[in-house]
């Protein structure tokens, strides 16, 4: 048959089954939309950071960093003299908090020198070049200035080094001028001015070096010679590698969501396409009867699938694009503490290709699967499983399901050890769930029969007899499977999220409660107290027994940006409570207080190849060797953490700077009163914010929850889509069964009896799907929580999410049964007269 004829045939048939095809289109589009939105969210996070970094480093291929952030004044001229160097420049980056008339933002201030545009030949740098003379002023991307409510020539309060300074906004930088940087929280100023603001005249964070084309290797060797072990030579975009490592856990969670979203979408599509099977089966029978071969039938169906898949995928991408713009916009808050990145949404060709290909493949599988059965059916006597054969098949499926489930449970209990084993474990659980579903439905139907035996009435009989019919059963299992996967995804992911949240809450509590009152630089970017400042020269004010310096920062070890915590020896409790995974918590705490010892996150220790009792040389500004007292969780920081004594910290950084002042109130003074007293002592010009431990804990908890908002959104969307999918599939199924309903009514049964049997059917299918989804989802939660601990080192406190499971089941079941009840009511009023036609 010619392609034009196939197309004409498709068009004629489409007009007769618009509703069913629309439902299938909607199903596939939903899956594609979820998949695409999750992919874009994931790529935007890393992509946005990468573009911001590239906008800053431009043509530079290398960067030199000084461990103490202090370069020899001869370093830059020396680099310029190297053969093969096209350009080099010093850069200072300082994390600040800015406050304008209409808002506050954490902003990375970038101090650059004239000549920066020679390193960075992009239009962005050309635009920046005009601001090099900004002594006493800065330039901001227009969107950032807008969010602060600041205009040109207005002053913006900048908190840096524990001081608040009003800085003049000299110019606004548009997207045309600075490209992707315009979406980033970055301020541009001159290097000397930023050094003055920081109160460190010679401070430079890195030197960017652009080699001449083809001379990269030569320049790198020469830079290594200049570095001579005192400096680090790294790729100019090294931060991207650090960011990728930090965002890995978040991306893994998103990947799992993407896979589950795609599965729900596929099952939705499959359920929807099943509604079109009778019409397609009739078409195939007609084609074979008229002498066309099976190959033609397959081509006709493949054309159906391709048209459906392409149209649905295109629609799905459009909807997914809107979801990614309006729903998945929150960035994981905790990453902002160590990295500056924008809110740019990045759609890569790979995102598009995966989503479109996924949609078309789902459509082909959903259409062509039943086609094979239809061709077999049209060629000979019914080959479907009937009677004992069908029951045996369900028994075999159940047996296989139990075996697969056992494998999944074994992984869940043993711990995954790697992300891929964790994902394999999740896949096993999903497969087991789908294999067990037909058997579970059979048991449920038997239970209904048993309960109905002592009662009169046809309602349960009609419901169960109809669900036992092969065609209804296949569609019913598809409906139940959709619910099962959605509930599984919801329970496993929500449960794991709650587990990690509990672990984080506890860790935050332990970290914050080492002191009742904290004074530190303000802002969301300093939640972990990592911004250094010179400690003010004040005596403990009234009500405060003592003031100590707490030290903290980030340290790059390998491709990790590790969080370093340096509590003073006087801290009233250990911040290791419940976080030690190897070693003894009490002795580790005593040793760290005494000095010369450290506690390291297990994953960082593994990367460094050290264990408890070993010596480890930390690449701090003044390298320091400490002994490992204990291995810990990552203390909620994805890249891991290191805890050492504040005095050891001061030696290692060769600095007297602190990142927080912690106050011990006198006996009888409340933390709130002590905080007021400290605030008064610091004075109104201080750029420090004073908080009680409870206030700090509240802020940190809120930030840690922000980071997981997207997971909640995706879970809700998966549940919503599954609900729509199940309701639509059930409604379609009921609507197609109206001739059957009419025949039962013709026999004398009432609309009410039919309606109740339809509602019971829906409740059985949705109930079976939700029940098995919730039960296996709880195992999935265990597996995911183990994986999070094993793979990312997060402090996870596992507690089965019974209430989440119950809530998800009740919400989905109630929504689906309500929708089906409404459609079923309409269907049950079918005219019985047509039952005799």
């Amino acid at each position, binding site marked *: 048959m010619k392609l034009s004829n196939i197309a004409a045939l498709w068009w004629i048939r489409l007009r007769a089954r618009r509703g069913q095809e629309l439902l299938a289109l909607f199903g596939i589009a939903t899956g594609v939309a979820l998949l695409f939105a999750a992919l874009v969210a994931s790529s935007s996070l890393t992509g946005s950071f990468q573009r911001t970094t590239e906008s800053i480093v431009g043509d530079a291929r290398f960067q030199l960093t000084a461990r103490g952030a202090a370069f020899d004044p001869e370093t830059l001229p020396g680099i310029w003299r190297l053969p093969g160097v096209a350009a080099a420049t010093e850069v200072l980056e300082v994390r600040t908090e800015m406050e304008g008339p209409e808002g506050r933002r954490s902003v990375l201030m970038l101090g650059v020198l004239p000549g920066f545009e020679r390193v960075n030949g992009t239009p962005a740098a050309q635009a920046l070049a005009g601001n090099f003379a900004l002594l006493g002023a800065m330039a901001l991307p227009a969107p950032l200035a807008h969010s602060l409510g600041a205009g040109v020539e207005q002053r913006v309060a900048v908190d840096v080094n524990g001081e608040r300074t009003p800085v003049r906004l000299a110019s606004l930088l548009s997207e045309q001028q600075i490209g992707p940087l315009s979406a980033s929280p970055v301020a541009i100023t001159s290097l000397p001015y930023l050094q003055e603001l920081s109160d460190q005249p010679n401070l430079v964070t890195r030197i960017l070096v652009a080699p001449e084309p083809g001379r990269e290797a030569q320049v790198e060797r020469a830079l290594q010679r200049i570095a001579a072990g005192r400096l680090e030579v790294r790729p100019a975009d090294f931060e991207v590698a650090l960011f990728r490592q930090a965002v890995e856990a978040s991306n893994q969670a998103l990947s799992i969501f993407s896979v589950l979203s795609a599965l729900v979408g596929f099952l939705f599509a499959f359920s929807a396409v099943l509604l079109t099977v009778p019409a397609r089966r009739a078409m195939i029978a007609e084609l074979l009867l008229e002498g066309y071969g099976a190959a033609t039938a397959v081509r006709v169906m493949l054309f159906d699938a391709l048209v459906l898949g392409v149209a649905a995928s295109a629609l799905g991408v459009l909807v997914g694009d809107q979801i990614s713009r309006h729903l998945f916009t929150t960035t994981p808050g905790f990453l902002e503490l160590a990295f500056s990145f924008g809110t740019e949404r990045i759609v890569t060709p790979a995102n598009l290709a995966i989503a479109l290909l996924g949609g078309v493949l789902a459509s082909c599988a959903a259409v062509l699967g039943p086609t094979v059965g239809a061709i077999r059916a049209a060629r000979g006597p019914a080959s479907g499983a009937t*009677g004992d054969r069908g029951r045996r098949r369900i028994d075999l499926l159940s047996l296989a399901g139990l075996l697969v489930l056992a494998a999944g449970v074994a992984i869940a209990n043993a711990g995954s050890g790697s992300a891929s084993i964790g994902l394999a474990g999740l896949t096993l659980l999903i497969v087991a769930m789908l294999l067990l579903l037909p058997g579970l439905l059979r048991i449920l139907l038997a239970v209904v*029969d048993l309960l109905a035996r002592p009662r009169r009435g046809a309602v349960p009989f009609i419901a*169960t007899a*109809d669900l036992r*019919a092969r065609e209804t059963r296949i569609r019913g299992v598809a409906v139940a499977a959709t619910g099962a996967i959605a509930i599984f995804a919801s329970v496993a992911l929500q449960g794991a999220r709650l587990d990690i949240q509990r672990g984080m809450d506890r860790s935050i509590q332990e970290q914050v409660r080492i002191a009742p009152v904290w004074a530190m630089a303000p802002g969301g970017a300093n939640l972990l107290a990592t911004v250094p400042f010179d400690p003010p020269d004040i005596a403990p004010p009234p009500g405060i027994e003592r003031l100590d310096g707490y030290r903290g920062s980030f340290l790059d070890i390998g491709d990790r940006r590790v969080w370093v915590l340096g509590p003073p020896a006087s801290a009233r409790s250990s911040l290791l409570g419940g976080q030690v995974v190897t070693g003894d918590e009490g002795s580790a705490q005593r040793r760290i207080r005494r000095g010369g010892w450290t506690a390291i996150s297990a994953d960082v220790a593994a990367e460094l190849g050290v264990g408890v009792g070993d010596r480890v040389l930390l690449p701090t500004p003044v390298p320091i060797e400490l002994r490992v007292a204990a291995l810990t969780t990552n203390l909620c920081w994805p890249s891991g953490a290191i805890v050492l004594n504040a005095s050891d910290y001061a030696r290692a950084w060769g600095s007297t700077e602190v990142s927080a002042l912690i106050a011990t109130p006198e006996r009888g003074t409340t933390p709130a009163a002590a905080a007021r007293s400290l605030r008064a002592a610091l004075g109104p010009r201080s750029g420090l914010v004073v908080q009680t431990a409870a206030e700090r804990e509240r802020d940190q908890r809120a930030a840690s929850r922000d980071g997981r908002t997207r997971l909640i959104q995706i879970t809700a969307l998966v549940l919503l889509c599954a609900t729509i999918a199940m309701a639509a599939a059930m409604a379609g199924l009921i609507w197609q069964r109206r001739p059957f309903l009419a025949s039962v009514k013709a026999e004398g*049964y009432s609309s009410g009896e039919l309606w109740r049997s339809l509602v019971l059917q829906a409740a059985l299918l949705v109930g079976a799907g939700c029940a098995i989804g919730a039960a296996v989802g709880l195992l999935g939660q265990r597996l995911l929580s183990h994986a999070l601990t094993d793979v990312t080192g997060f402090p996870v406190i596992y507690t089965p999410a019974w209430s989440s499971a119950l809530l998800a089941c009740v919400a989905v079941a109630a929504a689906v049964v309500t929708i089906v009840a409404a459609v079923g009511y309409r269907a049950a009023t079918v005219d019985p007269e047509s039952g005799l*036609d």
Partner: protein
Amino acid sequence: MIELEGVVKQFEAPGGEIVRAIDGVSLAVAPGELVALYGPSGSGKTTLLKIVAALLRPDAGSVTVDGRDVAGLSEREAADYRLEQVGFIRQVPELLPGATAIDNAAFKLLRRYRLPEARARVEGQLRGLGLGERLRHRGNELSGGERQRVMIARALAIEPSVVLADEPTGNLDSRRSGEVLDLLRRLGREHRVATILVTHDPLAAGYADRAYELHDGQIRSYAADSAQA
């Protein structure tokens, strides 16, 4: 006893034209009697059955079953009447494919009896119909003839006043058709049921106690020769 007197049923055709599907039909069928209505497609046979089943209301005339006016029943009363007094046998046996033969036969008894009791009431009938070995087989595991016998068992299970058979042999070969028709006649007599058989098969009409030809909605005496011609 079924009694129709001057029954008229008309429909509006798509072009707006009024068509008399049943045009003044009068007919009486006594208990135990099998009356065949022979006629081509569109002659009004099924419409007449629907009127007797209270699925359609006549525009004129009266329909009584055992002296009860079924034309004036409410929707609910009509449903109860069909469930308790009317047995149906159709060209395509509408069995519940997921239910066993015995459960399908017991289907109309479920409002009155618990399932085990309903099964007990139909088991003997099914055995009598030669389905003793097929009681636990599902609807989709039965042959066409077996399904039709299950429908007969279902129709008779309620001890009906009326059995309405609409082309019951339309999908069966001549041997199976003969068996089914013979059963209908025999069981109708045994159970004293007034049976109307609608068919366009002249052989089927031969099994009836009386046969009529329905043409353009009007009834007239059946002439086997003219039918076969």
